[in-house]
């Protein structure tokens, strides 16, 4: 047996405290920084009295209620569509070779930043986009792009589909990892032996248990989609835009009073996201009720070929669309003159890459320094927490898990705005550390969730052998456990870097434009900017995290070429 450290002398006990402070501190400060001005009180900006007038005033902005509706709708609809496509595919193909084949595409797609995916998707489906070009004029007769309202449509359909594309890989991976914890195969075997069809077996025997594990990530997707800014700027409606985009505009208004209006709007955003979550919760109950009725009806639902074909087709379409979106970014990045309806540019040139190498460099260096620093902080904190938990034999409670998800469920724009107000007050905005620490809030949950399982599932016998040789706990940790966990640690680092690089709002609001990263620069080009340049920025933005993941899979083998463990 290994000794458990006792008492408070061990600095490791600080780790969980630090973690909770890091996750909730900025959140509380940020919400205070939004709530106070929303109610008119913020002496720094000249608001000395509490009033409800701003909460009221903001609702009179043109298109306000439409923006609110849009936020709620996008939050719920994105999540619903993504979840339906993923679980249908799981039900249809679990365990089959098709499942293996298609899921190989999913992890790389997960690492593509939202903005890059949105740009590629826009280049694909716009009336002047690649799909129409490929079919014009021979099939469509178009010599000019059709006047179709596809991108930025007022109903937000392009935004909805763009978000679905990007959320599917996330839900897929979460579902995959949850599936490994609930004996899917045995459950299916029992259900099928009772004569249930393949798909229906999965829905009645696997889904209810699986969904419990998916619930928090799903809530994070709802919250994210209902308050997304970068994708909404690229694909979303403009007149009016989704509420979070409107908020950003008000925050940037030169009239000081608009700061209060924006804060009031942020409170409405919290309400909109909350309403989206509540509607989902009601939907859950409804689906649960109908599901139970269907289950006890005893129907075996054996004829599920059409369902399996449809579900597989949907997933295939998603993957093909996503991959084509990435290819079109690359094509535009080195396109010469490209007149509609030619399927390809009249020439390819790398001159844009060379011309812009200089201006891409600084944002890349900024993005990487922020990403590496914040990820390292998160990895260190996570490992300290997990080791503390192990030495003290503490169980991680569901409440603690909820804290972990807190920064992912409270809309970013609502509390980051509050933080930035404080930072401006003390002249701290626009510098490296505040931005990096803001990133840490959003990187930490992902790093923790990806490291926790491999750390806890570590084969304790290795540690017992090491301890029996009489070395200290720290030595066991650093010489045995961590080296053997090199692969998951590197993967967590790559994931952390990917999450950090994709962050738009924290960089924008806390960085005050002084720390441009590849993501803020790419999104700044949004609204119909130069497509060749967008291609370059979005591609670079995609490649950075990809390099991280490739390194994470190659380094362990290179570092320990003679260890079978890392093969």
């Amino acid at each position, binding site marked *: 047996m290994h000794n458990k450290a006792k008492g408070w002398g061990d600095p490791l006990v600080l780790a969980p405290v630090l973690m909770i402070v890091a996750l909730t501190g900025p959140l509380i400060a940020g919400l205070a920084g939004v709530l106070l001005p929303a109610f008119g009180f913020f002496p720094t*900006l000249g608001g000395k009295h509490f009033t409800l007038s701003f909460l009221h005033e903001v609702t009179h902005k043109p298109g306000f209620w439409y923006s609110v509706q849009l936020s709620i709708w996008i939050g719920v609809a994105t999540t619903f569509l993504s979840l339906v496509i993923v679980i249908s595919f799981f039900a249809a193909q679990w365990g089959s070779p098709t499942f293996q084949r298609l899921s190989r595409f999913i992890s790389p797609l997960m690492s593509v930043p939202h903005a890059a995916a949105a740009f590629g998707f826009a280049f694909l489906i716009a009336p002047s986009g690649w799909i129409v070009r490929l079919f014009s004029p021979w099939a469509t007769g178009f010599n000019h792009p059709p006047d179709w309202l596809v991108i930025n449509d007022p109903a937000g359909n392009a935004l909805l589909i763009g978000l679905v594309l990007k959320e599917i890989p996330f839900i897929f991976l979460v579902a995959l990892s949850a599936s490994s914890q609930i004996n899917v195969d045995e459950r299916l075997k029992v259900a099928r032996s009772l004569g249930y069809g393949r798909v229906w077996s999965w829905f009645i025997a696997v889904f209810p248990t699986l969904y419990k594990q998916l619930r928090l990530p799903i809530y994070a997707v709802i919250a994210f989609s209902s308050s997304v800014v970068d994708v909404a700027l690229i694909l979303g409606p403009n007149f009016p835009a989704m509420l979070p985009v409107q908020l950003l505009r008000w925050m*940037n208004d*030169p009239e000081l009073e608009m700061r209060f209006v924006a804060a009031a709007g942020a409170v409405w955003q919290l309400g909109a996201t909350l309403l989206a979550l509540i509607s989902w919760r009601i939907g859950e109950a409804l689906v649960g009720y109908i599901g139970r009725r269907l289950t006890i009806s005893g129907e075996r639902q054996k004829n599920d070929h059409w369902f399996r074909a449809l579900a597989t087709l949907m997933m295939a379409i998603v993957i093909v669309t996503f991959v084509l979106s990435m290819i079109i970014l690359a094509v535009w990045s080195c396109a010469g003159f490209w007149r509609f309806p030619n399927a390809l540019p009249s020439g390819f040139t790398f001159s844009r890459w060379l011309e812009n190498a200089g201006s891409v460099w600084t944002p890349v260096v900024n993005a990487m320094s922020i990403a590496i620093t914040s990820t390292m902080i998160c990895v260190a904190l996570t490992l300290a927490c997990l080791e503390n938990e192990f030495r003290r034999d503490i169980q991680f409670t569901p409440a603690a898990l909820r804290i972990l998800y807190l920064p992912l469920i409270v809309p970013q724009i609502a509390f980051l705005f509050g933080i930035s107000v404080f930072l401006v007050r003390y002249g701290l905005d626009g510098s490296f550390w505040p931005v990096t620490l803001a990133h840490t809030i959003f990187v930490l949950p992902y790093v923790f969730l990806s490291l926790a399982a491999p750390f806890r599932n570590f084969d304790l016998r290795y540690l017992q052998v090491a301890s029996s040789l009489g070395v200290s706990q720290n030595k066991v940790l650093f010489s045995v456990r961590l080296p053997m966990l090199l692969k998951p640690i590197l993967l967590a680092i790559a994931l952390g870097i990917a999450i950090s690089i994709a962050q738009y709002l924290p960089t924008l609001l806390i960085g005050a434009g002084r720390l441009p990263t590849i993501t803020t620069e790419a999104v*700044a080009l949004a609204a119909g*900017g130069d*497509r060749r340049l967008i291609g370059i920025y979005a591609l670079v933005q995609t490649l950075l995290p990809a390099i991280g993941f490739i390194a994470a899979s190659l380094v362990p083998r290179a570092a320990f070429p003679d260890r079978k463990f890392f093969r």
Partner: protein
Amino acid sequence: MLKTLAKNLSAIGLLTSAILAGAAHAQDVEPADWSSVVEAAKGQEVYFNAWGGAPNINAYIAWVGERVEAEYGLKLVHVKLDDTANAVNRVVTEKAAGRNEGGSVDLIWINGENFASMKRQSLLIDQNWSEQLPNYQYADIAGKPTLTYDFTVPVDGQESPWGMAQLTFYYDSAWLETPPTSLEDLALWVEKNPGRFTYAAPPNFIGTTFLKQVLYGTIADQSLLRAPVVEADFDEVTAPLWAYLDRLKPNLWRSGEVYAADTTQLKNLLADGEIGIAMTFNPGEASSAINAQELPDTVRSFVLDYGSMGNSHFVTIPYNANAKEGAMVVANFLLSAEAQARKADENVWGDPSVLDINALPAEGKAMFDALQRGPATLAADEFGATLLEPDATWAVKLEEEWANRYVRSN
């Protein structure tokens, strides 16, 4: 990478000491004593807040950065904005928060509307600095009245001229033979070619400018525009403007459900053949885009027959700028014949100069003489009359009313 990290770490230290040093910065800058300004500027970091939506302009600003670094040893950082109002917002917030020193904005590329707003709120350096810049002597004050009155607001040396703008339309002559040059012809063309015309949504500057252009062409008494908006009369005097826009709307691109974001998107739409007529504030833009292979070489420009909106754009320095000296050195460099000629070069940007070219020393004049006018750029005598910017209050009110009318509410 490590170097950057180290640099950022040391920046924290610097920041702290800068805050502690605080008041040391407080004394005024005296541009009349130019050599001391240049001396103080050495080593400063100048955060230039400028619209970042056009790659060629960004490249030009990057070139300015290289030149001032080589010549004056200062570092120019382009903070790319999607709307100039964002920079004004920062200064407003900093002032409210009591950050009267060491502000985060050093130099702003500004237009009349925001200049008026900053001046009114005392957010600018309270002295006549721009007229004392050494290169200001060549600015064409006599020939370009918009250099001294920006949207009717007196400049008073609180901003330094950078370039000239004139609302110019362009079209692909391979598609459209004779462009419509009156408002009536434009409306008829739009009716005959549904979905092939749009403008940028205000408050984007080109969108707001289009509203003013139409307002000039439809308002009964143009002299009203020289004075601030009279609230009581606004609806009545602007009624023909809204009637005209309402008439266009059903046949606009995407049926007026969405509008373009800015001049760059208008250019892309024209390049794709989505729209037949685009507009810009930079008369050299179309030729510049032909050179960059973004537009076909059959593109040509035109202006409306009753004159077109023209103004000047400037750079200004907020009252709490951290690097005032550096910002002045940059403003002065932007006024130099070298920088102005490069800016006017259609292979670079194509933005017209604010200088009186004939007054320049021979060397400077030669730089301009070497420039060639592209096929899509109008000759000086084809531009017609310049319509002066209305009082700044008009822009605010027009943008507000446009949003009320064309942003959907349910």
